[in-house]
């Protein structure tokens, strides 16, 4: 599928100093982030070390990392923050009451303490977001490496399968599958979202592998007698993973938003599960008169998604030698 990766040189090794190369033909996926070809700084530091030095000084990095750390702790130990368990101690008489004494965030439709409910909703978003991305990343790395490295029929086959799944619109596809298999929990949702969400990273990974496999250091490794597997995992992988890793970070945010959308549409998680998307689903009917129902879960959801996106952005900037 050479059409999607116009930037790849044919038989000509990629210039190893990308800061000097005006690589205008980046493909659709990798145009947002420039190809990060291995670059050893003047003092021999690695790309990742350089990136870390740059990240250390960025306020945005620390801010989003802090928000995500907090969200992570909330997901792991909700009881530390929430006074009540999920769907616990609800009083219908308090239904939809706004913030006041006793409940900082007010009460939800069932009269449960909204703050506690929202805290418990963190877990669904974080677990699904991270798990989906992790699985999709593994698939992308394996398929991208195999397809990009070996090429030929196998590559063509992988590319076509990628095209098929890439061609299914995300929300519609997920809706159809989720309705076909009702009674799904968090892990079934994860599976569905992985199924629909592995293509972008796979395409990007494949493009990266193709760009890297023609470099001199890969040729050197091969001449030294390294086997395919060693070349793929020890040489190509570390030098092609950076942009894929960035997209993975951004992807966590997108998956969380997507999961919330499916919950909101009513095809995702179902009561008695607790999630931000479900809370927003309930809120849609009442938000005009009870805005707190919409505002608080939306705030948490947005803050989490935003943090993943900002983190991905600063990491990309730090990893991208072209923008230095």
């Amino acid at each position, binding site marked *: *599928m*050479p*059409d*999607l990766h*116009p930037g790849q040189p*044919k038989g000509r090794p990629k210039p190893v100093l990308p800061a000097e190369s*005006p*690589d*205008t*033909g*980046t*493909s*659709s996926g990798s*145009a*947002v*982030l*420039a190809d990060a070809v291995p670059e050893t700084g003047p003092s021999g530091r690695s790309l990742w070390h350089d990136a870390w030095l740059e990240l250390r000084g960025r306020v945005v990095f620390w801010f989003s990392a802090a928000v995500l750390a907090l969200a992570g702790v909330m997901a792991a130990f909700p009881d530390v923050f929430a006074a009540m368990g999920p769907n616990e101690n609800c009083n219908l008489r308090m239904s939809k009451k706004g913030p006041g004494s006793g409940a900082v965030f007010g009460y939800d439709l069932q009269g449960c303490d909204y703050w506690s409910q929202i805290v418990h909703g963190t877990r669904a978003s974080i677990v699904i977001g991270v798990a989906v991305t992790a699985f999709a990343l593994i698939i992308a790395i394996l398929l991208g490496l195999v397809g990009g490295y070996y090429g030929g029929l196998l590559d063509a086959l992988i590319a*076509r399968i990628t*095209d*098929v799944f890439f*061609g*299914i*619109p*995300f*929300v*519609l*596809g997920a*809706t*159809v*599958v989720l*309705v*076909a*298999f*009702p009674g799904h929990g968090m892990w079934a949702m994860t599976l569905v979202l992985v199924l629909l969400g592995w293509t972008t990273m796979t395409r990007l990974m494949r493009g990266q592998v193709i760009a890297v496999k023609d470099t001199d250091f890969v040729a050197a490794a091969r001449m030294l007698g390294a086997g395919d597997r060693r070349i793929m995992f020890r040489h190509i992988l570390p030098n092609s993973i950076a942009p894929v890793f960035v997209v993975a970070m951004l992807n966590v*945010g997108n998956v969380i*938003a997507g999961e*919330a*959308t499916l919950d*909101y*549409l009513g*095809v995702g998680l179902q009561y008695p599960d607790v999630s931000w998307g479900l809370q*927003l689903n309930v809120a*849609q009917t009442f*938000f*005009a008169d009870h805005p707190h129902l*919409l505002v608080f879960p*939306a705030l948490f*959801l*947005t803050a989490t*998604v*935003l943090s993943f*996106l*900002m983190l991905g*952005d600063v990491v990309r900037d730090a990893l991208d030698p*072209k*923008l230095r």
Partner: protein
Amino acid sequence: MRYAVQRLIQAIPVFVITTFLIYTMVFALPGDPILALAGDKPVPEQVLNVMREHYHLNDPLLVQYGYYMLGVFQGNLGETFTGQSVSELLGDRWAVTAQLAVTAWIFELVVGIGLGIVAGLRRGGIADTAVLAGTTFIIAVPVFVFGYTAQILLGLNLGLFPTAGTDEGWPGSYLLPGMVLGSFGLAYVARLTRTSLVENLRADYVRTATAKGLRRHRIVGLHALRNSLIPVVTYLGIDFGNLMAGAVVTEGIFNLPGIGQQVFQSIQLQEGPVVVGVVTLLVMIFIVANLVVDLLYGVLDPRIRRA
């Protein structure tokens, strides 16, 4: 030309497998649609058999799919289990969704590229920072939250736009929903344009043009911008398919009687033929859009044709 043919041939298996997957999934939906038609009443065996025969439900899945695709290529999308033609059912709804998607698309194209250029020309400037922060925020807010907020603030409180329905026709009724639907793509287009422009402005050919003494607006307009827009065009093409699918949420919020709304109702009513019909058409649009983009891409960037 070889490139175009090759690309066309590639699209065929993708199309067949994608539609087959969707077809299979929808028909794996739980429940017997014929029994569901009758409600609580018992259905005589003969009636059941006749109905099953009529809808090819007794045939193997592959044969059913074959019948279906045959119909699609003859312009017949099948009929619902209540006997209504799917094409008819979708007739007016297509117009609504198409208008919505086009509004959103124009919005993305004009505002997105505009913002991207403003930001990209002065990397690190105030406008650039504002565009970056704003677009990150737009991407982070889920579309439905954005939709409701816009509906309340701009529609209800300020009264700038109609809040729901299609009474005012195009463009009036479609402006706000279009903006909401297009917001995500807009943010993406703006960022893509910016990154691409920043990269191109550093390219050697821009330095050469500057050295030659060309004026700034000619360098940007004639050289840098044209090259920068290649990835943007790709995205805009692919996104048109996304917009049609994304209409499910937006049409729900703004109560627009489009296909998105229909899909959603049909899924819940287990009207398999309608769901398959619409989703298949959406996938077709998506694949054709992809194809057109790839061909266009070849025209814009000769390196691809000759690769």
